[in-house]
C-alpha cells in the first residue's frame, strides 16, 4: 500500500481521447455455432480514436464478438454498422474489401508469411489492395522506424524475436491507414517486456493516427492500455465498462 501512496494519480485518460462519435457499433448480436450460443444479444460501440478492451474467459464469446465486428463472421441476428453503414449484411467480397482497406488486424502469432521479408509482409495488405509494389514498399518502410524496427526490413519472420514479429504485424495492421484495428490477444505469446513494447507502440501509433482499436485480451495489464473495457460473459456484455 505504501507503493501506491507515492504514485501520482493523473487525470484520465492519458492517451489520446476519443471524440465520442461511434465509428463502429453493434447491437443485439447473436451468433450460434452448432448448439453453442457464442453471442446472445451483445451490444457494442467504439468511438473514433477510442481503444476498447474486450475481456472475458475462454469460450465467453469475446473472439466471436471481434470476428463479427470485423466482418469476418456474419452474426445470425443483430446489426453491425461501420461509419454509419451496415456491414453485417454485405457479401463476403465486399466485407473482404472493407477489411482490407478500413480495418487492420493483429493476431496472437503466426500471422506473418514466413517466406516474405518484414518489408514485404508489411506491404502485403497494400499489394493485395492493388497498390503498386514500389509505392507499397515505400509506405511500408515508413512504419519501420516508428515501431523500432529500423534495419529489420529484409529479415524473415523466422529470424526475428516474437516481439519484433508482433511489431511487424502492428506495422502491417497500420500500413493501410485503417479506421479500426482489431487485435486478438496481441501479446499472448510474448514475455512481459515485449508485450509492453507492442502495446505501447500499438496504442501509441493508433492514438497518433486517430485509429480506433478493439483489443481482445484476458490480460488485465493489456486491457489497461484501453480507455475502457467490455467484459463478455456467456455471450453478453457485462460490467460497468460495457457501452
Amino acid at each position, binding site marked *: *500500500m505504501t*507503493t*501506491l501512496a*507515492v*504514485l*501520482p*494519480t*493523473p487525470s*484520465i*485518460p*492519458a*492517451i489520446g481521447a476519443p471524440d465520442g462519435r461511434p465509428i463502429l457499433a453493434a447491437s443485439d448480436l447473436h451468433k450460434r455455432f452448432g448448439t453453442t450460443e457464442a453471442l446472445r444479444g451483445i451490444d457494442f460501440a467504439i468511438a473514433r480514436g477510442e481503444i476498447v*478492451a474486450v*475481456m472475458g*474467459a475462454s469460450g465467453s464469446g469475446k473472439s466471436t464478438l471481434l470476428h463479427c465486428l470485423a466482418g469476418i463472421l456474419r452474426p445470425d441476428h443483430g446489426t453491425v454498422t461501420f461509419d454509419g453503414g451496415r456491414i453485417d449484411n454485405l457479401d463476403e467480397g465486399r466485407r473482404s474489401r472493407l477489411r482490407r482497406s478500413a480495418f487492420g488486424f493483429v493476431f496472437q502469432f503466426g500471422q506473418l508469411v514466413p517466406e516474405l521479408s518484414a518489408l514485404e509482409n508489411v506491404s502485403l495488405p497494400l499489394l493485395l489492395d492493388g497498390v503498386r509494389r514500389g509505392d507499397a514498399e515505400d509506405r511500408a518502410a515508413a512504419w519501420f522506424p516508428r515501431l523500432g524496427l529500423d534495419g529489420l526490413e529484409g529479415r524473415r519472420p523466422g529470424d526475428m524475436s516474437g516481439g519484433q514479429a508482433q511489431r511487424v504485424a502492428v506495422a502491417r495492421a497500420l500500413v493501410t491507414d485503417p479506421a479500426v484495428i482489431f487485435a486478438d490477444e496481441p501479446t499472448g505469446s510474448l514475455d512481459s517486456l515485449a508485450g509492453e513494447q507492442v502495446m*505501447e507502440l500499438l496504442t501509441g501509433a493508433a492514438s497518433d493516427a486517430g485509429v480506433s482499436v478493439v483489443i481482445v485480451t*484476458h*490480460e*488485465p*495489464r493489456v*486491457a*489497461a*492500455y*484501453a*480507455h475502457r*473495457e467490455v*467484459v463478455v*460473459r456467456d455471450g453478453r456484455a*457485462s*460490467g*460497468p*465498462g460495457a457501452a
Partner: protein
Amino acid sequence: MSVPHALLGLLRQQPRHGYDLKRLVDRYFAPDHPVAFAQVYATLSRLEGKGRVRMEAVEQAEGPERRRYAITPDGIDELDRWLVQPLDPEPHLQAALFTKVVLVILAGRDVTPIVDAERHAHLERMRELTAVRRTAAMPIALLADYALFHLEADLRWLDLTVARVDELRRTVLAPLETA
C-alpha cells in the same frame, strides 16, 4: 479481512452465539490465523454500540454463559453497502476480496456484479498506473509496474474465483446447514 463485515455477513444468515461466530470466521476466512475470542467479542460490542447488531438472548447452560447475537436493519444496510462498493484497488487485497466473495455467497446473491465492479475499479487504477508508467521517471515506473502486476494478480484471482463460484458456493453453504 474485515472482521466486522465478516461477522455481519455470518449473522445475516441467522442469529448466532459468539462462540459459533468465532468458529465460523476461523473456518471460512482465516483458517491459518484464528482470530482471538477477545477480538470477536470486542468487535461485536463495537457493532452493538453502532446499532448494527443486538444481543438477542443470554443462555446459561453448563459452562460459561452464551450470548446470542442477531443483525439489525442498520447492520444489513452497512453490509450491503460494503459489499457493492469496490474496494480501493491496491495490492494485497486478496483477503478482503475473499471475505467479500464469501459473504456475497452467504448472502445468497450473485457474485458477478460485485466482481465486475471490482474489476472495473481495478482497471481504472491500472489505466492510471499505465499512464504513470509511460510518463514517469524510471524508479516511479518500476513502482507502477510493481503495482500493476499485483493488481493484475488480484484480478486473475477474481476471475478464477468467479469461474469456480459454484464449487465455492457448495462448500461454503454446506457446513452451514449442518452447523
